[in-house]
């Protein structure tokens, strides 16, 4: 059909645009303020209502008023119009308001472009496989909308969706080539807004009662480790985080000043491993005790905590080596020892009295043993300890006697310091779960742990884990075994039926492969890949050449597909040629100038044995080709009789 040209939007394109708006904005409901979602929903419903009733769209002034009101709301909510959350809020608002202004094809084009843009914003919150798949589906829908927009009423839904699917699939090779070869720039290009990495969890800089217990209920993965050799036994897996030397009665903090250099003496061969840390927005890395070789731009401070210059704002891989047996600062700076003996005055008097009693004619080793046996007697391990008051250690040691690793570590260190032994709290992670499917050790937030370190004359800093005295299971098998039944733990850590575990292993292995290979593709990995492809010096020029030639090749292939498609042959003729091939196998060759009837006549003379069955074929062919009855069954049957 042919119609006069017009740029106005046809009525039946609009629902596609509504669907596009819905699919691209709806997932943002999760992290948007409620009023904004309500506003967006109202706009969408209003636009749908106006479309349904075929009524006039609201006037220009009303729209301007709405936009101003929306911007004001966002400004009040986020205190800015830019940055991640406010920016996304603005886009969502514009998208839904544009639906009230759909007049021409150009307006629709803006909606579609905004739709594509909104897809990107979802990755600011999650880059998981499900998000990726969902957005692929959304992209398919947006593309179909675009096709419907330009095809007009001649483009019914089903072929439109099919064409959109075909085009998205055809775009995938280009995506792969560009993904691998497009010169990668290590971001960020400018200072990121402060909310860019909001919402990451992990070990905090300080430790106060309850901070780790809260983390223990979080099943998020903190990091993954792959050892070059076998995985060391679980009770040796202490991942060292910040070391806390300063105590104000409730909270432990690391010492802020300069540390004298650490002196490490290795007593066992180093084992090397690669760790993939999730972003935790802190500067320290979590290295296996005691760290040996360090990755570039990383250094160890005097407490053996590995730190970087910049906070870790994205998942990153590091190579470390570790020594499980070591001697650490056998000779220690007196100021450090002084610092690690300090206790706030007039706090926890009972504890101090008890420790001072122990001090009388006991060696430091005996004091440590004494403290640990105290914990084994009446204490129990729980994630829900009673709240502690001002003299928390006193209360814990003499009344409640129920606590989590942080309570034990803190109480132990206070006891040691009161007894005159330099001691400090080390926070980090302990243990991990080995995934047999991909060989990675997975360390979750729920593996967060705190232990103590004491300094002994001639031996240096020695790790003492008082939690192990209370609950050996916590160290040997993991937190799920250590807790009494009924304690709240993330379901993932708690369910331990065999098939659930296998399923979880598989899912986590897939996720890990995704993170390592897809999301973890960075400038360095790009260089490695190109070196393997035979392009060792990867300046922008060789990348451009590789990229250009790969893309040209793809375009050429696609052009060949598009321009030289073999025309479909008439099914009747196709069947006739099939019959001729049957004849050729019996050494009857068909001359191009022969009509079917002449061919039959010749066959009757030269190959009488074929004549009858071939006659049926010709009859059926002539009927199928030239009569109004164009059923092919008779011809198919006749050909089947030929053999």
């Amino acid at each position, binding site marked *: *059909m042919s119609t006069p*040209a017009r740029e106005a939007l046809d009525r039946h394109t609009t629902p596609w645009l509504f669907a596009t708006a819905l699919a691209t904005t709806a997932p943002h409901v999760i992290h948007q303020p409620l009023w904004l979602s309500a506003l967006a929903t109202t706009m969408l419903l209003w636009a749908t209502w106006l479309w349904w009733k075929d009524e006039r769209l609201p006037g220009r002034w009303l729209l301007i008023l709405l936009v101003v009101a929306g911007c004001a709301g966002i400004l009040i909510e986020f205190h800015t119009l830019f940055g*991640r959350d406010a920016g996304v809020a603005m886009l969502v608002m514009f998208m839904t308001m544009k639906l009230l202004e759909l007049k021409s094809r150009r307006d629709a084009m803006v909606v579609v472009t905004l739709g594509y843009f909104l897809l*990107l914003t979802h990755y600011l919150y999650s*880059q998981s496989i499900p998000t990726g798949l969902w957005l692929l589906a959304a992209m398919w829908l947006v593309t179909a909308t*675009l096709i419907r*927009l330009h095809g*007009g009423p001649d483009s019914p839904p089903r072929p439109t969706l099919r064409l959109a699917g075909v085009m998205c699939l055809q775009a995938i090779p280009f995506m792969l080539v560009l993904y691998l070869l497009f010169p990668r720039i290590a971001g960020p290009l400018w200072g990121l807004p402060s909310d860019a990495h909001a919402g990451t969890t992990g070990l905090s800089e300080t430790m106060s009662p309850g901070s780790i217990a809260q983390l223990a209920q979080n099943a998020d993965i903190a990091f993954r480790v792959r050892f070059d050799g076998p995985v060391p036994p679980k009770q040796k897996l202490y991942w060292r985080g910040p070391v806390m030397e300063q105590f104000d009665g409730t909270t432990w903090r690391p010492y802020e000043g300069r540390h004298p250099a650490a002196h490490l003496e290795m007593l066992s061969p180093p084992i090397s491993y690669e760790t993939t840390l999730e972003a935790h927005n802190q500067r320290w890395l979590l290295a296996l005790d005691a760290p040996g070789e360090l990755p570039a731009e990383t250094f160890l401070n005097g407490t053996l905590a590995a730190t970087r210059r910049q906070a870790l704002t994205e998942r990153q891989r590091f190579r470390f080596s570790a020594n499980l047996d070591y001697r650490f600062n056998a000779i220690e700076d007196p100021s450090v020892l002084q610092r690690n003996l300090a206790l706030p005055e007039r706090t926890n008097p009972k504890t101090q009295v008890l420790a001072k009693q122990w001090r009388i004619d006991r060696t430091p080793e005996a004091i440590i043993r004494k403290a640990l046996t105290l914990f084994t007697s009446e204490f129990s391990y729980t994630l829900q300890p009673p709240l502690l008051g001002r003299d928390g250690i006193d209360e814990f040691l003499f009344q409640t006697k129920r606590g989590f690793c942080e309570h034990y570590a803190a109480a132990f260190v206070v006891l040691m310091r009161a007894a005159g032994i330099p001691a400090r709290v080390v926070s980090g992670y302990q243990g991990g779960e080995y995934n047999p499917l991909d060989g990675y050790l997975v360390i979750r937030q729920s593996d967060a742990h705190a232990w103590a370190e004491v300094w002994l004359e001639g031996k240096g800093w020695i790790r003492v884990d008082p939690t192990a005295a209370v609950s050996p299971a916590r160290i040997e098998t993991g937190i799920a075994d250590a807790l009494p039944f009924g304690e709240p733990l993330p379901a993932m850590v708690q369910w331990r039926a065999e098939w659930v575990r296998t399923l979880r292993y598989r899912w986590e292995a897939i996720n890990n492969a995704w993170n390592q290979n897809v999301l973890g593709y960075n400038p360095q990995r790009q260089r490695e890949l190109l070196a393997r492809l035979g392009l060792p010096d990867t300046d922008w020029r060789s990348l451009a050449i590789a990229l250009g030639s790969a893309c040209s090749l*793809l375009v050429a292939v696609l052009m060949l597909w598009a321009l030289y498609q073999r025309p479909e042959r008439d099914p009747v003729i196709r069947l006739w040629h099939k019959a001729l091939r049957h004849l050729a196998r019996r050494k009857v060759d068909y001359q191009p100038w022969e009509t079917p009837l002449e061919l039959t006549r010749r066959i009757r003379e030269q190959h009488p044995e074929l004549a009858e069955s071939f006659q049926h074929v010709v009859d059926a062919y002539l009927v199928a080709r030239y009569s109004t009855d164009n059923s092919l069954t008779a011809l198919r049957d006749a050909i089947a009789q030929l053999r």
Partner: protein
Amino acid sequence: MGIVATIKQQLFRWRSDGTAPLRLGQRRIFIIPSRGGLLYALALVVMLIGAINYNLALGHALVFLLAGLGIVGMIHTFRNLHGLIITPGRSAPVFAGETAHFELTLENDSSSPRLALELAAEAGNSVIAAVNRKKSLKIKIPLSTEKRGWLKLPRVHLSTRYPLGLFTAWAYLQPEMRCLIYPQPIAASLPVASPSPVGGERHGDGGQNDFAGFRERQPADSPRHVAWKASARNAGEGPLLIKQFSGGAEVELILDWRLTNDALPDETRIGILTGWLLTADAAGTPFGLSLPGLQIAPASGDLHRQHCLKALALFQP
């Protein structure tokens, strides 16, 4: 002829006598990004910067997928024109000032439909066509007219933005087609009929004065002369009848160039003659046409009318 003109002719000529079908090949199709495509490209650049800044691996992937989609869209847009078969058709004469329509047949022998084909012979006056797979379609390209005479179909701009609207592909068609444009009529009262110099011999030949019975309708007779009541009596089975008149046929209407005021411009005089012609034809009066160097004997009917109008359209005073 300048080099540019030669190249243009080489590129755009219709490689046949103007009646044979033309299949659009690669060399005839041009393609550039559309305004929507530029918006899309701009959005992609901003998205890429965002993906780099926030270090979004999947953001990169999405931008690259969309870039791939753009390239694929370009090829599909090209393909929407490539291989289209165009056959010139006919065009019915119109009066100057009306819109002429040139008929083209678009044939699609590929296995996918070709949608949103836009054809225009002049700016701002286009038609949109969609040709289904394995189908053909007759379309009429509008062209506004000003002057009488033969109107050649100028270069036709065939363009499409389907499917994604990111690119505009176009081709120029120049089929040999022309349309006869009749002069624009100027309303004026009919001149007085003059006595026919050969009145006696032509007695009863088709005058309109006294009713003399019926005769069968000939194709040349105007439908206005049909005696509908009389024809209806044989309930549509017999042929249509025409009223016959006799007597007084000595008076015949000759639309003579000399009857128009020679102080007027030629084109106005032709317009007046055309106006007379239409008035006489509407009244069913037989008329003749007399132009310098051309005499058309009085008659009536569609063919006669067309014959006279054509003479007026092509008349060179």
